[in-house]
């Protein structure tokens, strides 16, 4: 108790400090780490001139355009485009510009290759977006066409063919195809020719060719031919005058020769060609010059196109494989890469297009199977020292990672799966075992002292630059933070993250390295599970008392399809070894996973899975779990939000499932429902308390020795609705027709505790709920600024407990049980403030015991994380606080919230593409770990009220030692002096 009082006292003392988080520049990297990623690569273009640095320019599914060093995989530069600005194509023009086409072919940008500065941007006007896009997924770009002395970029998008100058981005000419009712499939310009061919289908059975002058864009010729059987899908350009497509029945391959006077078709039956019926054929879009690759389920068949449209099968590959485009190298030879999986290894074959039987290069590479199958291959050539041609291959794997293969080995790999994290949980590290001394004495005393003297020099600003470098190095190297055992302060943990590719990673919080990774077998494509998606990760088994010998494990929930009613999959993974312990393919769907606050004798957490029919399924499926569950049967409530219908429902368990013999399945009944009027309110955001949040005290002592009681309930739900008119485009609605309504709802009884309307406001709304308060961010249309509001909710039914006499006599209700059915009187307070920036994510710090004051963590539009003290969002702020209130720490009211640059948790770094902020309490009460993820990852440790319970990292032990030595010396000196004086006295 004393310690608590002391801590609180300290807190009060410390909270007078303006901002809890601030950093010196030389402390960067001490408590934090930052990792930069790009995401799953869609396109790659190599730039390997003889001189200069070798690089590869990539675009990814995270809308990133980046230039990578081909030697070391480091990022030269990187740009993250907007969320709806997906990159359609990338190429290099003039040898110095990177050209990207994005936003469904409407924005063309050129970037300077060495430094990534945007050079020009042009907007390509399209007329009929829907029609042409339906038939042409992925617009067509053709770059590097010589027209006179000017490099011209040809872009076909949205029914228009544009010719754009690559020097300044001016549109030289455009040709409108939208009026011709043609669905353009390909734009072809044979080399050394001024004629551009635009080929496409009219209807389903007519093939048209337009010839266009590449200089002026005028139409030279228009040919058309009917093909009564019809076409299916896209056409593939096999050689400069030959196209291949499938007919409407998908049983014939059709070759089209389009450059002669007459368009001629030639039809070949596939089963005749291949020899047997293999299933539905799919033409792969790889351009292999003279060869086409057709995929039947698992079989890959290569077919050579001979003159006059004759086809011939050259090879069949049964292994999982991927093919690159053909690359032309010396003397007009063309080569392409084929990557196969052959029993655990991958086999890279480089073949020449004209000669199938000889392999130009054949390499077998052993590979960690956690990368999965190869999905994409990009090939590049280089000249070896003996002047022969060598090939390097960039491959994209199933788990989104990017690898460079050269000379039979993996030169580098990038774990790009980490750019798309879906969910995060933690796991404790193993306890340091006795007898195994991990903390060995590494340095002798002299070195230890030397280090501290150096540090002292650093703090006293006496250190030379070399010294500073040594200090920095020493700090970063301190092996303490990356050890594989639990530490006293609880800073070292494992972060278990689930990525979109269905891969699970364990990251060490000390330095961010990957401890293990597992491509979950249950979340991979299989016969029974066509489109698996990971949903979330939960702590399944957290041993601490009587199951100490067990390893902790996590539960990964997933789903076999994009819809809510797809059957679910569960996977249990050991967090120390990274092995899958068990996997379950479920018969029911997974709409919601509720971790229950009960554990069985092996410390497994009970989880309730709600399916789309609102039936509850209990896991683990043991009789012990059923026993625990039956005891709490009537105390389990949950809610569901149907945002599309505007309904929130509360549910409770009723009985065992009827019809199904399954004792782990339970029916539910609807307890209550709140229906929002669809013409005036639309649900856009909900927020609830974190399940593991700890609240230290219910009472809040305010200025005049008064006490207020926080309304603390785990079942509080915040709901924000806006006017349907204001839900559309930003900037469209007027303040009169838009409003934001916020609710605080009790999810057990369905009681609306508080309702408030913000007129003239609109979304997007980001909210965070903690203890007894909720903070939300929205847009105020009248002021045309963002606002943040806070609502605090207090329990009035306990208000009379303040009286000490009542407490003494025993007339208090402190011990009366809290039931949500008793409808306690509540009081709310709220206040609004302007906030300058748009917000991407909102979170709040959480500590082990909830004593430390809270900070809001705001993910800003600039992809930074700002820590803002909760005291700035206190509804009791007033313009002129009284002396007592000032002592309590109430800040005078201002109309906007301050943005203090030093309180950016991410300091001068950015977490590009920020999606989420997760806070993890440590054992040290003052400190919390903050993990921000997006395309980048960032982890740091912050102390919202400074580290009042431990010495800081840069505490100078040397200064302490020096002082002690000086004191001892002083004692001795004075002792000797006094002895002498006494002796003199006696002699006198």
């Amino acid at each position, binding site marked *: 108790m004393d310690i608590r009082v002391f801590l609180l006292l300290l807190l009060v003392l410390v909270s007078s400090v303006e901002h809890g988080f*601030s*950093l*010196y*520049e030389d402390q*960067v990297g001490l408590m934090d780490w930052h990792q930069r990623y790009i995401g799953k690569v869609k396109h790659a273009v190599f730039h390997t001139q003889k001189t200069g640095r070798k690089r590869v320019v990539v675009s990814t599914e995270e809308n990133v355009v980046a230039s990578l060093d081909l030697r070391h995989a480091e990022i030269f*530069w990187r*740009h*993250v*485009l*907007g*969320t*709806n*600005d997906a990159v359609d194509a990338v190429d290099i023009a003039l040898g110095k510009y990177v050209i990207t086409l994005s936003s469904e072919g*409407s*924005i063309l940008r050129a970037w*300077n290759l060495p*430094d*990534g*500065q*945007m*050079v020009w*941007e042009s*907007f390509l*006007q399209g007329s009929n977006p829907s029609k042409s896009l339906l038939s042409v997924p992925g617009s067509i770009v053709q770059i590097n066409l010589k027209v006179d002395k000017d490099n011209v970029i040809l872009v076909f998008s949205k029914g228009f063919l544009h010719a754009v100058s690559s020097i300044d981005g001016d549109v030289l000419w455009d040709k409108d195809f939208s009026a011709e009712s043609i669905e353009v499939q390909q734009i072809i310009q044979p080399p050394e020719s001024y004629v551009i061919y635009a080929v496409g289908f009219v209807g389903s059975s007519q093939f048209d060719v337009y010839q266009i002058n590449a200089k002026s864009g005028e139409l030279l010729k228009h040919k058309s031919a009917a093909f009564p059987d019809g076409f299916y899908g896209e056409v593939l350009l096999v050689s400069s005058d030959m196209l291949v497509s499938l007919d409407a029945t998908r049983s014939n391959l059709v070759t089209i020769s389009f450059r002669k006077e007459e368009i001629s078709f030639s039809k070949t039956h596939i089963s005749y060609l291949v020899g047997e019926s293999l299933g539905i054929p799919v033409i792969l879009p790889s351009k292999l010059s003279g060869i086409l690759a057709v995929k039947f389920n698992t079989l890959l068949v290569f077919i050579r196109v001979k003159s006059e449209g004759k086809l011939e099968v050259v090879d069949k590959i049964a292994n999982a494989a991927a093919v690159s485009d053909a690359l032309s190298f010396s003397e007009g030879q063309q080569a392409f890469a084929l990557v196969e999986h052959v029993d655990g290894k991958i086999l890279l074959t480089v073949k020449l297009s004209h000669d199938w039987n000889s392999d130009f290069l054949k390499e077998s590479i052993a590979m960690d199977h956690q990368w999965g199958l190869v999905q994409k291959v990009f090939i590049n050539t280089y000249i070896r020292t003996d002047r022969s041609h060598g090939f390097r291959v960039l491959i994209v794997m199933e788990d989104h990672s990017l690898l460079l293969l050269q000379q039979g080995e993996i030169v580098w790999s990038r774990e790009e799966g980490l750019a798309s994290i879906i969910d995060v949980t933690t796991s404790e590290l193993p306890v340091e075992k006795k007898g195994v001394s991990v903390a060995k004495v590494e340095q002798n005393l002299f070195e230890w002292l030397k280090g501290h003297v150096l540090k002292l020099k650093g703090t*006293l*600003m*006496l250190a030379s630059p070399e010294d500073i470098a040594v200090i920095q190095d020493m700090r970063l190297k301190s092996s303490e933070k990356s050890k594989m055992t639990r530490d006293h302060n609880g800073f070292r943990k494992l972060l278990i993250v689930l990525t979109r590719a269905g891969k699970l990673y364990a990251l060490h919080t000390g330095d961010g390295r990957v401890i293990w990774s597992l491509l979950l077998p249950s979340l991979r494509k299989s016969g029974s599970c066509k489109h698996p998606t990971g949903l979330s990760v939960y702590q399944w088994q957290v041993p601490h008392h009587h199951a100490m010998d067990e390893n902790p494990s996590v539960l990964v929930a997933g789903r076999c399809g994009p819809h809510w009613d797809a059957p679910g999959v569960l996977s249990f993974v050991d967090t120390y070894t990274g092995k899958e312990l068990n996997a379950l393919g479920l018969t029911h769907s997974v709409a919601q996973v509720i971790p229950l606050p009960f554990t069985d004798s092996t410390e497994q957490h009970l989880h309730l899975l709600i399916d789309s029919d609102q039936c509850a399924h209990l896991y683990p499926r043991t009789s012990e779990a059923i026993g625990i569950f039956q005891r709490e049967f009537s105390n389990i409530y949950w809610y569901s939000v149907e945002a599309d219908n505007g309904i929130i429902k509360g549910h409770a368990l009723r009985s065992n499932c009827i019809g199904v013999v399954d004792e782990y399945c339970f029916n539910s009944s609807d307890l209550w429902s709140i229906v929002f009027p669809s013409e005036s309110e639309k649900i856009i955001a909900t927020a609830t308390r974190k399940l593991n949040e700890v609240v230290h005290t219910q009472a809040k002592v305010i200025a005049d020795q008064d006490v207020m009681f926080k309304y603390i309930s785990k079942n509080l739900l915040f709901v924000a609705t806006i006017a349907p008119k204001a839900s559309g*485009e*930003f*900037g*469209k609605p007027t303040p009169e027709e838009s409003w934001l309504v916020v609710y605080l709802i009790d999810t057990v009884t369905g009681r609306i505790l508080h309702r408030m309307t913000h007129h003239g406001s609109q979304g*997007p709304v980001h909210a965070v709920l903690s203890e007894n308060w909720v903070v939300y961010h929205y*847009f105020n*249309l009248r*002021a*045309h*600024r*963002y606002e943040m509001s806070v609502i605090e909710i207090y329990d009035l039914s306990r208000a009379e407990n303040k009286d000490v006499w009542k407490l003494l006599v025993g007339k208090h209700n402190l011990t009366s049980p809290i039931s949500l059915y008793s409808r306690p009187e509540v009081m709310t307070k709220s206040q609004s403030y302007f906030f*300058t*920036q*748009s917000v*991407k994510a909102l979170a709040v710090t959480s500590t082990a015991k909830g004593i430390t004051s809270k900070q809001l963590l705001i993910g800003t*539009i*600039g*992809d*930074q994380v700002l820590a803002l003290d909760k005291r700035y969002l206190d509804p009791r702020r007033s313009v002129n606080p009284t002396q007592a209130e000032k002592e309590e720490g109430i800040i005078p009211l201002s109309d906007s919230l301050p*943005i203090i*640059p*030093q309180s*950016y948790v991410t*300091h*001068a770094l*950015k977490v590009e593409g920020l999606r989420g902020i997760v806070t993890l309490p440590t054992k040290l009460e003052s400190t919390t770990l903050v993990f921000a993820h997006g395309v980048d990852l960032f982890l740091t440790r912050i102390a919202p009220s400074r580290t009042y319970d431990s010495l800081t990292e840069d505490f100078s032990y040397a*200064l*302490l030692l*020096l*002082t002690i030595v*000086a*004191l001892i010396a*002083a004692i001795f000196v004075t002792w000797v002096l006094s002895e002498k004086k006494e002796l003199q006295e006696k002699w006198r």
Partner: protein
Amino acid sequence: MRSTPVILLLLLHSLLCFSSLSLSHAISAGDGYTINGRVKLRSMGAQGFGLPGKLSNVKVILNGGQRVTFLRPDGYFSFHNVPAGTHLIEVDAIGYFFSPVRVDVSARNPGKVQATLTENRRGLNELVLEPLREEQYYEIREPFSIMSLVKSPMGLMMGFMVVVMFLMPKLMENMDPEEMRRAQEEMRSQGVPSLANMLPGGAARS
């Protein structure tokens, strides 16, 4: 020498007016308008125009992330095909603090773009965005001074020691020798000096 920047600025302004007007007119045939603007980083003047590393990482964001664009080498940016209405433009540049800008694109007189800084409600004639202030993300280490050493807890401790060591004997010397002797006698008679004896009241009683 002094007049050149002014002329240059004017020239830029007029250029900007011209471009914004003409472009908007040209494109307003479709369903949207074009917003053209310019970002000026103040320190670029001091450190030489065109710090490419910094300029290339500046993003201009329309309506809280609906669209994102980048700066051209001269600092200009544009948003195409923007519907008429009120929009918000934010500039994301690490190291600088920009106020968001409210931009009204009117359908009635196309090409007219009205801009207001939302932080201080200042209207802008042209869409030239300048940072309100530079942001310093790190605390600046105080240079070494004797005072900081003295103020530290250790320093205070040392100071106290010095005070006790050198001032206390002086105080003792100033005491009356007779009183001193009496006190010593008392000490000898009592053995252990107690707090009560030291107090004047206690001394009087004895």
